[in-house]
């Protein structure tokens, strides 16, 4: 598979702070859902800003879809990337839902007629068309994030970065946003990078990269990473609920293959255990 984002030996620190990344390299494959997990301060969100050229590298190189991130390419690169940030309140630029979705299109000087069509189809895509006249104060957190996603869909990027986009939402809102992004990803064949604390969110990814203190600790399929609870705990991450349940069962003498299972597979495995007795 082609690498859509190549991060090569980057070094970065904020002014007056210790080095955050030292010679870090990451590849993101096209069409894949990559989850970046790690503790607070491990540099995950900084990475998203570096990829989009919102902050400037000290050394190293980032290549997005064949373009090197620098001052000349910055607007072409931002056309390819849509970011959903953490705080739904702070990324709502427009006075109403419609105006917010139109904001990115206005920046690209799209003619008005076309803009109205795109705004309508994007809002319908995320199921917020009925809310187009609402002001942000009258929307829930999940609804605001939907609008943020509509704003990105309108620009039809190749890459969506979720920068802890679900961390301020309730469990239902979180699941709705993830389902929505999954749908949009499949329909448009997008690459998704989700930066998250939520292990269950990371468990749905194709590939998980564990970052700790600015370096990559591990990089594998979620099944392999979430099976090893002790290792996760050693870098300050908690294991998904299913893995914790399997551990608890192992302590009581019920042997599993110590492999990560999602809800469905766990239920199937328990059913099998019960019927074998």
């Amino acid at each position: 598979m082609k690498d859509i984002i190549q991060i090569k030996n980057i070094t970065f620190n904020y002014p007056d702070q210790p080095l955050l990344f030292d010679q870090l390299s990451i590849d993101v494959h096209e069409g894949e859902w990559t989850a970046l997990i790690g503790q607070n301060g491990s540099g995950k969100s900084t990475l998203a800003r570096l990829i989009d050229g919102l902050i400037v590298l000290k050394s190293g190189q980032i290549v997005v879809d064949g373009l090197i991130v620098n001052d000349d390419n910055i607007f072409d690169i931002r056309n390819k990337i849509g970011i959903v940030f953490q705080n739904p309140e702070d990324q709502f630029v427009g006075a109403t839902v419609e105006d917010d979705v139109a904001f990115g299109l206005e920046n690209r000087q799209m003619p008005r007629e076309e803009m109205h069509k795109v705004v309508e189809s994007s809002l319908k895509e995320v199921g917020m068309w009925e809310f187009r006249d609402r002001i942000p104060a009258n929307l829930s957190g999940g609804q605001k994030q939907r609008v943020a996603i509509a704003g990105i869909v309108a620009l039809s990027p190749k890459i969506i970065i979720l920068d802890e986009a679900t961390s301020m939402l309730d469990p239902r809102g979180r699941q709705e946003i993830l389902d929505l992004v999954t749908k949009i990803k499949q329909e448009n064949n997008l690459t998704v990078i989700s930066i998250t604390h939520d292990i269950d969110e990371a468990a749905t990814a194709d590939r998980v990269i564990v970052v700790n203190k600015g370096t990559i600790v591990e990089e594998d399929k979620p099944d392999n990473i979430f099976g090893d609870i002790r290792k996760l705990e050693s870098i300050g991450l908690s294991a998904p609920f299913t893995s914790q349940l399997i551990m608890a069962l192992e302590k009581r003498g019920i042997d599993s293959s110590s492999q990560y299972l999602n809800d469905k597979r766990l239920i199937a495995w328990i059913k099998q255990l019960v019927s074998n007795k």
Partner: protein
Amino acid sequence: MSNFLFGRYLPGNSWVHRMSPQSKLMLCFFFVIVIFFANNVWTYATLSLLLIVVVLMSGVSIGYFLKGIRPLIWLIIFTVLLQILFSSGGHVYWHFGPFSVSDLSLINGGFIFVRFLLIIMISTVLTLTTTPLAIADGVQTVLKPLKKFHFPVDTLALMLSIALRFVPTLMDEMETILNAQRSRGVDFGSGSLRHRIQAAVPLLVPLFTGAINHAENLSTAMEARGFTDSEHRSKYRVYRWQTKDTISWGVFLLVGILVLFLRNN
């Protein structure tokens, strides 16, 4: 929030609602200027009649206008009383020391009262029938000629629309901080003046730092969505000048001319 009338918009579909914001804004301005030309019963009566027609056409119930006047009622009474007690001339009915009440001062007091009422009412019609967003757009259109003098009209309009969009957000935040500080024992709104000012610090400092955080995050999000500068952008919303606006301007101009004829020279 319930007493907060600024930016309170009542959805509707009346003649006044459907006018373009730039012409409403300018008409409002025009009306206020004309009010200052009025100086006798006939001129005030003409303007009041026009205002009543506007209010009726806006389809907004009179209760909302009374609400708009309520916070200013003391200011109005104070000014009217000053006018009545301190103006000299005419037939004096009563006087005590520097105070006097005459027929002329009573009439002038009455005029000041009507003047206040007219100004408040017309601006309330504007805010009740126009969304804050439309007002921001109207300001942008009205100020467009200033571009010739390198005045950053588009930037001002963007700032205005972001400011209006954050008013409810910051109000909510203030409420949260207020309650959080109360729960930690800060007593707002009692004690001496010095004590009250001191009590405002734990409210204002978090509110300011919060606003700076919002600004930082918002600007990052705007940049990520391709914002470069406020001039090279297309516009999603456009409020066109309509026949309604022309007709309304015609009526207002006629009334303005009528007032010029009727006033005492």
